[in-house]
């Protein structure tokens, strides 16, 4: 056990997997000589050299496709998107190549690739740099979508993603990189994909969240506890495949649900959870499932407007009050 930041946990996962498997390499903009725009790859060039830590031109479509090609012939690329906003330029390679080659080839050729980097908003980066696209990737069969919220999950899930034989979209959070927590230093410890984590057990209401909404959800649970509402907080960790058992088991016990996510509402991840829950646990619901999400607008630059746009603890508390018919 070591106490380290989310950033260093990702760094450790990369280092360990690169030490473990010669086929694993890191490629992206500024990952090598600059040690990463957000320093996630700090020191890796020094340790592994320019062959395995590869700086690219600004050409997301090109270098992502090169990564997909390398994966098709057995390498295990980790492609860093400086942020997932830029992955839109590479999305054809992700959706039409990475996600489909195994199927189109009748199972002959797999694509063991990880595409990782920060997603969602940070602070005042404006409309083009503050977008959460996880629902888009989760919409696509053939992809897996992983979004760790803590340093321990970041390390264990990135290691599992690198070892996974499928294309994995691994979305981090710029606002999470400095978050500290205890992380196992066992190089063999991986956290299996597709398993949610109950970050706080509770009996009165289930708050489902992932990535940057986990901390606000836990803060909300604390506030609610003071009011005598005992909230269970489920961190999905993997968006696709979704851990339906953990979600449904909780819902059948608490009968009330709030789903919080960072992104926009229309056909967001929360909408899929509502679909799942009302379909599989219809009779267990004592109230409609409510959602907390970004205001349905492009992210404004002004800091007050931005704060008002974001999902936060007070909004989660308010939603819980509603589903509990309190206030």
């Amino acid at each position, binding site marked *: 056990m070591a106490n380290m930041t989310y950033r260093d946990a990702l760094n450790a996962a990369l280092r360990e997997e690169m030490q473990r498997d010669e086929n694993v390499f890191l490629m992206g903009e500024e990952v090598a000589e600059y040690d990463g725009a957000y320093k996630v790859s700090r020191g890796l060039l020094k340790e592994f050299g320019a062959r395995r830590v590869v700086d690219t031109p600004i050409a997301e479509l090109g270098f992502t496709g090169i990564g997909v090609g390398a994966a098709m012939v057995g390498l295990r690329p980790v492609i860093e998107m400086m942020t997932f906003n830029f992955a839109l330029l590479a999305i054809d*390679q992700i959706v*039409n190549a990475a996600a489909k080659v*195994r199927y189109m080839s009748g199972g002959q050729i797999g694509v063991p690739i990880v595409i990782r980097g920060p997603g969602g908003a940070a602070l005042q980066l404006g409309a083009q740099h503050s977008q959460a696209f996880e629902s888009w990737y989760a919409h696509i069969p053939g992809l897996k979508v992983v979004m760790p919220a803590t340093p321990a999950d970041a390390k264990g899930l990135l290691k599992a993603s690198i070892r*996974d034989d499928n294309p994995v979209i691994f979305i981090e959070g710029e606002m999470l990189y400095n978050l500290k927590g205890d992380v196992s230093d066992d190089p063999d410890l991986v956290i299996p994909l597709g398993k949610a984590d109950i970050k706080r057990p509770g009996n009165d209401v289930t708050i489902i969240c992932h990535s940057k909404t986990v901390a606000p959800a836990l803060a909300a649970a604390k506030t609610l506890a003071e009011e005598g509402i005992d909230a269970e907080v489920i961190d999905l960790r993997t968006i696709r495949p979704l851990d339906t058992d953990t979600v449904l088991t909780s819902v059948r016990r608490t009968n009330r649900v709030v789903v919080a996510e960072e992104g926009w509402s229309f056909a967001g991840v929360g909408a899929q959870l509502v679909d799942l829950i009302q379909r599989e646990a219809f009779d267990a619901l004592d109230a409609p499932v409510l959602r907390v999400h970004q205001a349905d607008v492009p992210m404004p630059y002004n800091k007050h407007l931005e704060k008002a746009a974001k999902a936060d603890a007070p909004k989660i508390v308010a939603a819980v009050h509603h589903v509990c018919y309190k206030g």
Partner: protein
Amino acid sequence: MASSQASKKGRSDAPFADQYREWLQMMVLIRHFEEKAGEAYSLGQIGGFCHLYIGQEAVAVGTLAALRPDDYVVSAYREHGQALARGITPRAVMAELFGKATGCSHGKGGSMHLFDAERHFMGGHGIVGGQIPLGAGFAFAAQYRGTDQVSITYFGEAAANIGAFHETLNIAGLWKLPAIFVIENNGYGMGTAVKRAAAITELSTRAASYGMPGVKVDGQDVVAVKKATDAAVARARAGEGPTLMEIITFRYVGHSMSDAASGTYRSKEELEASRQRDPIVVLDSRMRELGMLDDAGRKAIDAAVDAQVADAVKFAEESPEPDPAELWTDVYAPEAH
């Protein structure tokens, strides 16, 4: 254009008799295979989009003759010719067009998505330009592993105007990847002539933007294609980097089965003119000139090919449909236990 005038002197060609015969037979096979595919399509035995390779045979045969079995090949949706020239059996290709379980993609890919992992045939791809970064990726892997494999990536001239071409060639030139990029310039992208799609029509010169040699090749002369590809392969294997080949050829047919060969966007006359230097005739004549072929020999080739194609169709017709459960497989890797 890199031409094969030199080779016109019998002496230099003589030792190649077997090769030439092989190439001729493969070009004839592709031609007959495509003609039959066209018929099967009209009969409703083949569905979806179907893009025939008729007229371009020398490009696939000449380029792939220069490669090793462990090199990598990737193409677009007009890839039947490359699949056959790479050695995928006519049975497996025809069965794939028929969507049968015995097809080279098990019936799940279709005409635009032929794959054969064993032969390093990394697929036909349907998004224009989409295969270009993939081809560079195979070359990257070879460089990463320190093997001397090369990759060859085929795309049409219209694909030279899309972003993936630019991003990939710049990276390939920068990293000196062992890659060969082949522009199959058949004059049209669907109904759009080169000069209506590209600001310059000498596409091989775009190589200069990427620090790699660009060579223009006569795509109706399989010998010229082979020679030019040999040079690009040698350069790549030697670690000297990629080459951009612009191979000039002609599409004798419509863009796809739903497009007429001539009419709206090109005249009957133009089409006829383009047929004057038929790649099969060009090689056939040279071989006769060199005493490598006579009527009997040619008849034998045609007969062998006809039998092969007929067998492929019969095989495709008689092959089973994929099991209904196949709908759900190959989306993700089988769970490792």
